[in-house]
């Protein structure tokens, strides 16, 4: 997708908007997510205080990333883990491929990790002859469909049970069923053998506690647990901005992330790994890969505060654009408000082809609901406006000139009056078809306003001339 990002978005969004099934699925899923979030937040007194704490912790995570990653790495290495640092996606892929090759691996099982999607790890490993299985149910589903996830915490949010049933019948030979429990059981049965046979287990890392060198993963299904206790080798990938300074920071973070992410008070499993398991008690080797892949560049930009993102997905669930056109419309593994800000820096090398000058910063109606719900208090609306300005700095001179002229017009009373009069006259005088031709983006879906006979100023002069000054 190396063309104009906005044009590509509009094409995909138009298709999504015409898909009634998708829209129904999206609405139900996001409404449910928001309702559960609201219920959980009502149970947290002093929510705003906790949010402040989380915001400070996550700010430190990216501001002090060099020191925190160094500290975490030292502790992990001292505990016997193999620590790697990857400057970009290609380096990260190479590191993982080498680890797999050294282990003589054939079969890899994966927990859900947005970072591994970001660096396009799976296709790279598959090209090297490895069988790579997503084990998170939602990721497993989209992997079977050959799609990318459409939401960062609910990958198959765009599908309904009938679609999953047909998929499983097709690809797993399972009996068709409308029962989510039976569908889940079909996936469980299919993947259980894979967990037991896998050579390498790959996970992400929601966070790493720098103070103790502790890798933190959150999940509900247990697939990360199985992927990281059964195979011989565990490889964990995490972003350099994911360190929590202290162990105690876990409490505020674990207090806010599940309610905002999945509408739960607590997820089923939080694993805190301090290093490799003793012999016979788990994988023989633990590798931790700290990945930069554009995060340093993002930290140097005006949108750096997005690095505090917890990957909860609340901003997606509340975004009216996401709720209508869905995650796939963005054409990137990071959709929605957070995706607009992360994708140009983290997915620059990926097939998405985005960069700060070719981004989806326009895909936002500026409603500001995202900023309201972010548990890390990231000022998403301001960052999106900043990203928009960033993009426009690289716009063609003609567009910048047009806005320069607008700026002058807006501040020049004569020009402003004349422009208004011309607009009113055009609306009054020109035939409808011509008006529509002149304003295609408005008129395709909306009628133009009926012109008033006079401007406000003219009306005021008629009725209350004494009030003019």
């Amino acid at each position, binding site marked *: 997708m190396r063309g104009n990002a906005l044009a590509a978005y509009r094409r995909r969004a138009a298709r999504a908007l015409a898909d009634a099934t998708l829209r129904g699925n999206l609405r139900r899923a996001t409404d449910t997510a928001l309702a559960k979030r609201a219920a959980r937040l009502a149970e947290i007194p002093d929510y705003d205080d906790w949010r402040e704490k989380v915001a400070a912790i996550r700010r430190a995570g990216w501001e002090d990333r060099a020191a925190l990653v160094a500290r975490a790495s030292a502790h992990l290495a001292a505990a016997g883990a193999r620590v790697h640092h990857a400057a970009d996606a290609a380096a990260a892929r190479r590191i993982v491929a080498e680890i797999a090759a050294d282990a003589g691996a054939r079969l890899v099982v994966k927990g859900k990790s947005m970072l591994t999607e970001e660096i396009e790890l799976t296709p790279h490993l598959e090209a090297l002859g490895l069988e790579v299985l997503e084990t998170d149910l939602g990721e497993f589903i989209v992997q079977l469909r050959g799609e990318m996830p459409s939401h960062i915490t609910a990958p198959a949010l765009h599908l309904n049970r009938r679609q999953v049933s047909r998929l499983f019948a097709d690809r797993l030979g399972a009996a068709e069923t409308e029962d989510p429990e039976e569908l889940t059981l079909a996936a469980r049965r299919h993947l259980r053998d894979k967990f037991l046979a896998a050579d390498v287990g790959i996970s992400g890392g929601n966070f790493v506690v720098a103070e103790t060198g502790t890798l933190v993963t959150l999940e509900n299904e247990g697939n990360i647990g199985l992927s990281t206790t059964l195979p011989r080798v565990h490889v964990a990938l995490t972003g350099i901005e994911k360190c929590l300074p202290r162990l105690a920071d876990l409490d505020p973070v674990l207090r806010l992330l599940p309610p905002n992410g999945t509408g739960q008070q607590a997820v089923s499993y939080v694993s805190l790994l301090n290093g490799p398991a003793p012999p016979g008690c788990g994988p023989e080797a633990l590798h931790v890969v700290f990945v930069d892949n554009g995060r340093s560049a993002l930290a140097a930009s005006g949108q750096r505060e997005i690095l505090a993102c917890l990957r909860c997905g609340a901003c997606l669930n509340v975004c*009216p654009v996401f709720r209508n056109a869905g995650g796939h419309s963005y054409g990137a593994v990071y959709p929605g408000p957070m995706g607009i800000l992360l994708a140009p820096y983290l997915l620059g090398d990926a097939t998405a082809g985005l960069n700060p000058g070719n981004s989806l910063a326009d895909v936002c109606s500026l409603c500001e609901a995202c900023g309201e719900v972010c548990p890390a208090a990231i000022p998403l609306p301001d960052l999106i406006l900043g990203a928009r300005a960033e993009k*426009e700095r690289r716009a063609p001179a003609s567009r*910048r000139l047009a806005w320069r002229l607008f700026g002058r017009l807006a501040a020049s009373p004569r020009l402003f009056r004349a422009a208004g009069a011309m607009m009113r006259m055009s609306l009054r005088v020109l035939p409808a078809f011509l008006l529509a031709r002149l304003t295609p983006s408005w008129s395709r879906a909306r009628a133009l306003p009926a012109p008033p006979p006079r401007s406000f100023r003219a009306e005021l002069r008629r009725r209350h001339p004494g009030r003019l000054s």
Partner: protein
Amino acid sequence: MRVRLFVPCYVEHLKPAAGLAAARVLDSLGLDWTCPDGQGCCGQPAFNAGHPDEALPAARRFRRLFDAAEAVVAPSASCVAMVRRYHHLGGLAASEREALADLGARTFELCEFVVDRLGVTDLGARWPGRVAFQDCCHALRELGLFDAPRRLLAAVDGLEVVDQPDLDCCGFGGVYAVKLPEVSAAQADLRLDALAAAGTDTLVATDVSCLLHLEGRARRRGLPFRGLHVAEILAPDPAAARPAPGAQTSEATP
């Protein structure tokens, strides 16, 4: 109190009725108000389109026109939100920054001004009929405007308000409406669905921009729709014969 009326550009050129209603509200409060000549646009379209520097001339012009006011009042939350952001614009001298911050603090959306600044909740208005009230995003989230319009409407004699909070953005979003018209229209449709569910065709809101977008979409779809700025309920034009509920208004009716 020296009150100045600030007229949003789309009120000036497309919906003067909202401005006239705001004027009547100020009259009913017995205020000494004027409307400075030489107003333009607040510059928000440029700011929102990613060209914040091009809002500078508008900011400076606004200051020249309104700095002498004790309070500036506008029938538009998004314009007031823009004015309150002026002092963050790049390229301002420190003294300009200070002056604009101060001016922004003295600039109010109409309901905000009446309720929060003047402490008035009952304007003695009468408007029998049922309307729906929906929030505009900048009103809600930039100005924190929720109670003021509702309290004012609650005091209107004969008025039945179907309050519709917690709706998604209507999809206007300024340049967004023409940059992503498909999604914008889809968002409008959801608001119109809500309006239909309220059992009325009359939608009341604090921002005319959102109403123009929704009205345009409704008319394209052949749906009955009448969009009224809050002021038009709070200070109905005594000279106008109100159309029967359900009929579509055209702009010709003041």
